[in-house]
């Protein structure tokens, strides 16, 4: 299951599933957005 999240998590926890990371301007400011694939089913 693809999951997208702001980079507040530890990269060490998702490094194997990391698909992309890129800079983004948001309401919270200048952040790095990370896209990773998770097996988690919500």
């Amino acid at each position, binding site marked *: 299951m*693809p999951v*997208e999240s702001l*980079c507040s998590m*530890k*990269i*060490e926890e998702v*490094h*194997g599933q*990391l*698909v*992309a*990371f*890129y*800079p*983004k*301007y948001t309401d919270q400011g*200048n952040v*790095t*957005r*990370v*896209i990773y*694939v998770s097996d988690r089913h919500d």
Partner: protein
Amino acid sequence: MESVKRALARCYAVDLPAQACLLREKYHRRILLHFYLTDGRVFVPFKLRESRISGDACYGYIDIGQVARLVPGNEPYVNLKNGDRLPLYSNITNARLAYFMDLEIMADCVGPHEDADLDLVNAPAVLRKVFAGEAQP
């Protein structure tokens, strides 16, 4: 951005400055932002936003294996295999060049991912060849 890149490299014990130096020499490029990990993934840099402030990062990284297609047009974008679309802020030609550079790095620098189980399966054949070689004059 750089902290994510460094954290990722740390997970795979990759020396990014040394790797960048090797890639620049190998491909005769003054600037080369690509990097790869020991598990076989190669990350390609794409311009994924316009900077509002000078010095802000514009480039993001995508695992080449997750790119489904670079879609041209007035508003080009990267189509990911998971269905996500990331808008490109460079022209499609530059994006394609980055993509092909990535393929070259993958072919030249990234070996097949080591599989310990496969090594065990192949072990008898390797041993047979070794002993056959020793038996011959």
